[in-house]
């Protein structure tokens, strides 16, 4: 790329960041931006092999470049850095994950029991080293050779470089900005109840423990807050404020536990921590993108207390029109579901996209995106996605 091309890409990236920021803040824009949620679908679309792409950075880079060359998206959720298995392959750890020509999966399991939760909280690193990793990687965990460790660390460094490299490729060569800082609150935002569901207990054990061991779980969540969330909140209050020129949002978080919590449990276990965090962002005038897995519609009103521009909900399964009714102060990311992308005609896709832009984006507050990640080859027809990308790029509000 020559200097002129680089400058053009910088300008394009800045223009896209402004588009995202304006829509998130309900400021009318010339067009609606599209933050694409394509993940491993890119590999199939490029004609690459999934097993190769997951273990060879060059193949994955080819898939990502093929996607960015063919689909004019304004943002890309995954630049090929999810599900890379080089490190674990180098470590000789089989059985923890699997992949076929069509799919990749993790053989997930809970890291704690209700009886060991507090042990974990007391010394997370030690517990992880002594309890979690042996269980996760099997009996051979303690028999790793020095060479295996060295190889794994080398692969980890390569992986780190790949993450930086792909961020640079998408930003500098395609003008595609990053979603949010990697450490928006100087650390990944993970609330206690989310950690319990996603990693420590799992959905079933947590569901049962919410009834059988309510007090213990509450104690865990409070202590988790003190240890992890309170310092983050403090850093948000002490931060410099919005980073308008660098990222589309100031922070990004994922919520999952609302899918199992009843209203009383939501108010007891998630809302207090989440509210304090959102209060901090609102006070600083920063914008937060929240990816709501499953459905969060029934709790939408709670979030409507925040001023426009604070929260953008990335909806996985909720209807964006219903959500707008329920929480008119929250911007929306979404609108495209895999069912339509996979089965509808090009004309139907464009008509739906036009409706989204007209009804949700004209006054600001809407960013086009796929709700569910595009993972499998039948999650979208290439023609449909291409037509949507072209349409939304050219459609003036």
């Amino acid at each position, binding site marked *: 790329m020559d200097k002129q091309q680089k400058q053009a890409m910088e300008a394009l990236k800045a223009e896209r960041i402004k588009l995202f920021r304006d829509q998130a803040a309900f400021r009318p824009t010339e067009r609606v931006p599209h933050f694409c949620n394509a993940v491993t679908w890119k590999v199939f679309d490029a004609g690459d092999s999934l097993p190769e792409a997951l273990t060879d950075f060059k193949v994955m880079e080819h898939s990502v470049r093929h996607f960015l060359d063919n689909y004019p998206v304004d943002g890309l959720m995954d630049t090929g850095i999810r599900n890379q298995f080089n490190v674990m392959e180098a470590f000789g750890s089989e059985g923890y994950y699997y992949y076929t020509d*069509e*799919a990749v999966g993790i053989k997930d399991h809970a890291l704690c029991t209700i009886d060991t939760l507090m042990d974990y909280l007391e010394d997370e690193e030690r517990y992880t080293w002594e309890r979690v990793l042996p269980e996760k990687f099997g009996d051979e965990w303690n028999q790793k050779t020095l060479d295996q460790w060295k190889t794994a660390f080398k692969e980890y460094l390569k992986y780190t470089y790949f993450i930086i490299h792909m961020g640079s490729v998408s930003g500098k060569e395609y003008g595609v900005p990053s979603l949010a800082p990697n450490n928006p609150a100087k650390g990944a935002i993970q609330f206690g109840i989310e950690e319990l569901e996603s990693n420590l207990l799992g959905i079933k054990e*947590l569901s*049962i423990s919410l009834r059988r061991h309510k007090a213990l779980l509450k104690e865990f969540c409070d202590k988790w807050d003190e240890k992890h969330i309170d310092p983050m909140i403090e850093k948000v209050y002490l931060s410099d404020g919005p980073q308008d020129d660098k990222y589309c949002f100031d922070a990004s978080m994922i919520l999952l536990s609302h899918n*199992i919590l009843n*209203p009383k*449990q939501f108010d007891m276990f998630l809302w207090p921590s989440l509210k304090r965090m959102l209060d901090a962002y609102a006070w600083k005038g920063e914008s937060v993108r929240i990816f709501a897995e*499953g459905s969060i519609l029934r709790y939408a009103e709670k979030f409507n207390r925040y001023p426009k521009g604070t929260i953008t909900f990335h909806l996985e399964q909720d209807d964006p029109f219903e959500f707008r009714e329920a929480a008119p102060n929250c911007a929306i990311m979404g609108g495209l579901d*895999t069912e339509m992308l996979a089965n509808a005609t090009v004309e139907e896709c464009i008509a739906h996209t036009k409706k989204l832009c007209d009804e949700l984006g004209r006054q600001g507050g809407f960013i086009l995106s796929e709700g569910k990640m595009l993972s*499998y080859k039948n999650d979208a027809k290439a023609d449909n996605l291409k037509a949507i990308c072209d349409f939304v790029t050219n459609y003036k509000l």
Partner: protein
Amino acid sequence: MDKQAIIDAMADLEEDELYDYMNEIMDNDGEGVQEALEACQEGMKIVGDRFEEGEYFVGDLIYAGEILTEATNIIKPALTGDGQEKYGKMILCTVKNDLHDIGKNIVRAMLEAGGFEVMDLGIDVDPQTIVDTAKNEGIKIIALSGVLTLAVDSMKDTIEAFKAAGMRDDVKIIVGGAPVTETVCASVGADEWALSPQKTVSVCQAWAS
């Protein structure tokens, strides 16, 4: 045996209280065991209603399934087997290429409480296994579950396998789970679809009646 108290304990998810009632029945040589089972099932129906109304959510259904199973296990030695599954056998499974089982297990608990003998074939079940089981067991109701969008393809493959075996007209098939919608139901060729366990139960009961 206080039937209403058992219904309330189940509906309110009062685990210890429910088990106490079950143990009391066993201490009395199983007297009233059939009524107790029916009370549990009625309580489970209320759990489903509270889920529909938004008072309970998925975690509560998981818990309800757990305590219903345990309560039934306590009184099982006293049950004669008569009239427990008035709607007969049906098949439930998560389809090929999908390993999720939580939704399936919730539905199983609700179906069992709703009067079915559920043959749970597990997760990642290939179409031919489902067809063969239906054929060998003479089962007419099939419930296919999935969470991944990939599961939609497997649901379609399963229904195609029933057609290939010449059995499509002999069975009723309901699909359910996160990626399932009315359009998906039509595109895979299923007879019905559901996102809630309650709807699954009522559809299957209507088919079995």
